[in-house]
């Protein structure tokens, strides 16, 4: 029918779909799944970094980290709001997260073990996230695209701050350099895995067709590797992949085989922190139930008072 054609034409022309426009149910579902997963990742992602706020080594670093984690909460908010334009409430999304039905980025199931992890998360994890997200700024769903513009801007700032923190540490003591190298060793492969399965194993062809996803996993991953190798050199750290080397013919860096068993194992709940992360979010939610109830009860009272007045 006409509205299907209109939808397809808009997509093909690179235009935006807005909340009030007609859209296929599968498009809506795909978006809800992807945007909420992204929102949950922001929220769960507050935990590994939050783990170091109380132990940040200087007040300046503490302030930077607090601001960063606060930004992540803000990203979560925009993204939940974008989801709500698709007719799903934030509470429903939260329940899906807490029950384990909804996913979040597996990267946050790795622990933050030393202070350099904070810098490395900024550099590698936020760096990989940005690679993934920049194409989303032009994705076909308007509210999501606009949220991503703002998020990408802030993430770039975080990435630079993370990298700067590492530069400072690499100029410091032997122990600091060891911390950075240790953190890089632990975060490199998980960061590479953030781009998801190889294109040949990827199941989200619809996302491409609908203009939600615009560049393939492998292309993004290659782009990330190419950019990161140089940054690692400047930093003076070794990326933990002996197969990593420049391929003149391809004009790209080759890199070693990814351990997909580990990837799927973490996705399926067997990462080091899956249980603790969800438990922390559940505890926050359950401990806070009385607060949310109180806020609602008070609003109702206020409304009743206004009516009576």
């Amino acid at each position, binding site marked *: 029918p006409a509205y299907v054609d209109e939808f397809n034409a808009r997509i093909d022309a690179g235009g935006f779909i807005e909340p009030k426009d007609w859209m296929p149910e599968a498009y809506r579902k795909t978006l809800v799944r992807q945007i909420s997963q992204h929102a949950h990742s922001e929220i769960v992602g507050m935990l590994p970094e939050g783990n170091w706020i109380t*132990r940040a080594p200087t*007040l300046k670093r503490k302030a930077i980290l607090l601001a960063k984690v606060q930004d992540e909460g803000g990203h979560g908010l925009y993204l939940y709001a974008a989801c709500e334009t698709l007719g799903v409430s934030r509470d429903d999304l939260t329940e899906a997260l807490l029950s384990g039905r909804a996913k979040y980025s597996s990267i946050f199931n790795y622990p933050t073990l030393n202070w350099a992890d904070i810098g490395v998360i900024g550099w590698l994890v936020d760096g990989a996230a940005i690679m993934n997200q920049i194409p989303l700024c032009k994705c076909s769903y308007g509210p999501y695209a606009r949220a991503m513009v703002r998020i990408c801007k802030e993430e770039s700032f975080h990435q630079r701050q993370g990298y700067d923190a590492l530069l400072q540490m690499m100029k410091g003591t032997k122990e600091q350099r060891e911390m950075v190298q240790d953190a890089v060793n632990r975060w490199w492969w998980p960061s590479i895995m953030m781009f998801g399965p190889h294109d040949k194993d990827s199941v989200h062809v619809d996302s491409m067709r609908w203009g939600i996803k615009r560049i393939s996993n492998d292309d993004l991953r290659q782009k990330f590797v190419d950019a990161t190798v140089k940054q690692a050199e400047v930093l003076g750290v070794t990326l933990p992949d002996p197969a990593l080397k420049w391929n003149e013919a391809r004009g790209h860096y080759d890199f070693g085989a990814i351990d997909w068993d580990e990837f799927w194992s973490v996705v399926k709940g067997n990462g080091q922190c899956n249980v603790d992360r969800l438990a922390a979010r559940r505890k926050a939610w359950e401990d806070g139930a009385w607060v949310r109830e109180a806020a609602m009860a008070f609003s109702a009272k206020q409304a009743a008072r206004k009516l009576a007045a």
Partner: protein
Amino acid sequence: MATNQEHTEYVLRIGDNALILGQRLSEWCGHAPVLEEDMALANMALDLIGQARMLLTRAGALEGEGRDEDRLAFLRTEGHYRNLTLCELPNHDFARTKVRNYLFSTFQVLLLSRLVGSTDAELAAIAGKSLKEARYHQQHSGDWVIRLGDGTEESHRRTQEALDYLWPYTAEFFAPAPGEDAIAAAGIGPAWHELEQSWEAQVHPLMVEATLTVPPRTPFKSYGKFGRHSEHMGHLLATMQYMQRTYPDTQW
């Protein structure tokens, strides 16, 4: 005339309040009842850490022994911190966190309002920058105290318990501290007992609105601002100082 040491300690008291309460609030990050509060609490922690940085820097300059904000924040032993005991108490639940924020920020607004006219121009400038933040903390936490106090039966009970628990520690706000009169005479800042009446005049009506009962004053005394803290302080410091103690003389 106020001595340099009295002046330093006066500024330290204000800076340590911000530092230690900022540290406590930052513990909430990722664990708040709603996402908006995760952000609000992180934001207030950030404000307080920012204030602490300016105030400790100023205190270090006054002291003249080359201690910067980080040496002061991380490398003093417990007895040298000058924060109010109230600021170091564990967060406990959301009610206690919000009631504390309200009691403290109301005090802070009054204090900063006076400090903007300080003869210590740097202190005045810091107060000027901090006042807006403190006002926001007061507004935000006051709204929550009302909402929780006048919310459900459970929220009322928890908020009343929070007030009962915290109230005795507020006497310390106004306890005379050494050198305060000289500080006041020099126009650096008020002796804190000068703020008591205005503080009570603001707190009581809000508690009435929140349907809460302000407990009577008791002889309970706490001594954090004199360097004698509660048992909670040592644990807070063990965490906060960990990196600086483990890796001395290191730049981050």
